[in-house]
């Protein structure tokens, strides 16, 4: 049904989206916790920076990453010189660009469920002898698990469709950075590529819808496990 090249784009898309979520999830949980539970000086600034990718054009995000993580960039150069890591024009770079774009989605989902956790439960855990990390991992984290999971699934589904940031930062290299949307774009630019574009678009659509449904199902199941509905 699909040509090997088309399969490659599908696999690559899944891999990039998965890596981006794996990378941003712990950080997103930490940032969400900071934003909802701590009052500190730079809080409004952090809040704004986290949400930037939602409002600025993805191409601008990609360009910013190119400046920062390019081989000559302030982060890219030490990464390359000291560790031999190059992000531009690589699958890892595509995952990074996707992670930055979907980061606010996870933060928002986690923050929403954190705000639904009664701080009284954390106080109860304290009175029972649980220190900060102990009560985060034994009380807070299990209670926000539905939010984390649905945030991760939505970020994954959205990550499958990332285009602007990837093409700007990681370019459009088949087998390396050419994810589904990029492959669709390339197909529309190629004479006779209409069939490929249509098939890939259908797959893209199906995966996105499946992701949304899965997120809802998982959240509902977990809420029932927690005995709250």
């Amino acid at each position: 049904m699909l040509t090997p090249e088309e399969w490659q784009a599908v696999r690559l898309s899944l891999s990039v989206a998965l890596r981006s979520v794996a990378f941003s999830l712990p950080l997103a949980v930490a940032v969400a916790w900071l934003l909802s539970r701590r009052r500190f000086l730079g809080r409004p600034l952090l809040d704004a920076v986290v949400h930037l990718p939602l409002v600025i054009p993805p191409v601008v995000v990609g360009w910013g990453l190119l400046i920062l993580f390019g081989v000559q960039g302030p982060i890219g150069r030490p990464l390359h010189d000291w560790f031999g890591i190059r992000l531009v024009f690589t699958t890892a770079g595509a995952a990074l660009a996707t992670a930055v774009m979907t980061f606010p989605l996870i933060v928002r989902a986690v923050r929403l469920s954190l705000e639904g956790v009664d701080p009284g439960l954390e106080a109860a855990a304290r009175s029972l002898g649980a220190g900060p990390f102990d009560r985060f991992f034994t009380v807070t984290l299990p209670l926000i698990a539905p939010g984390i999971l649905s945030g991760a699934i939505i970020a994954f589904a959205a990550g499958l469709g990332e285009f602007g940031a990837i093409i700007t930062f990681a370019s459009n290299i088949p087998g390396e950075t050419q994810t589904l949307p990029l492959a669709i774009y390339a197909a529309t630019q190629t004479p006779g590529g209409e069939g490929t574009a249509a098939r890939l678009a259908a797959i893209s659509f199906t995966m996105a819808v499946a992701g949304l449904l899965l997120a809802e199902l998982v959240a509902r199941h977990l809420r029932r496990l927690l005995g709250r509905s």
Partner: protein
Amino acid sequence: MLEVTLRHAWPATRDGEGFSLDVAFRGPTPGVTVLFGPSGCGKSTILSAIAGLLRPQSGRVALDGQVLTDTAARIFIPAERRRCGVVFQDARLFPHLSVEGNLRYGLRRAPREAEGPSFEEVVALLGLGRLLARRPAGLSGGERQRVALGRALLSRPRLLLMDEPLASLDVPRRAEILPLIERVRDAFRVPILHVTHALEEVDRLADTLVLLEGGRVLAAGPPEALTAEPGLTLLAGRRDAGVVLRCLVAAHDPGRGLTRLDFAGGSLLVTLRPEPVGSTLRLRLRARDVSLATAPPEGLATHNVLPAVVEGVAPAPFSPHEVLLRLRLGPTPVLARLTRDAVGTLGLAPGQPVWALVKSIAFDHGGPA
């Protein structure tokens, strides 16, 4: 000994007036200290500060000589290392854990050398056996509070803090939990600080009573003494005002359906009680159930006619037409509530010997002390 001195002020905001707390009191260990006062008097705030969940602007909290908070010496032991078990009004059970998981949460974190009741003892005492596998969401209000009490106990606390644990329950549930708190007190000898606005809990639990109003301590001491003060309107101004008597169950007479109770000022015959002979009881002798005569009356249905001396006459806080008389039965002070007219007609005045009349059926409050 639990020693508490706290000062904390909240500034007025657009949404409400400011509030300031300025209290100092001591409580016995082991023993039950009850903080009693109307809503908003600061009693729950005091409990939070003792638990370490609130950091007071200034103050000192010490338990059996160990300083938990001392703002002057910059000491503030974090709540998780204070070993103060808290039973919250809203139970606060962890919804993602089973009842057993909740009970073991504190037990697992208690220091190994800490002594206290075992898991099985607590489950048996509080009747939690059938609930262990259940989730908190499926429990009734009374069951939740029992689990919360068990969870706090199993954390092997050096002090058990109870923040109106019965306030959210209906009357039958309350009647079910209150004896359990008494059993915990008697079985485990853990010092308890109990916060409430229910007089019944004061009568049944308090060794030391701390009366609070508007963030200040009005009075503190044994409930037997404080309840006999006509000037303490927080207690004496109530319809059920009266002294708490500590009594010994002296004898049962099932034939007549009566029990004889001895207290420091004499004996009382009351309706047959369930408690065994030799046990001690705390009873509230309500001022409205005490009548007076200037001569020993005859042909009376009232069993209890006790010689007494009028010690003071004070206007009743609840009505301009009534007065509260403070009597002395031997060493025991008792309050009597009479009309202003009766006091005038009988010419009652301090120092006068009288007879105090108490109906046997007047006692339906109280429980084992």
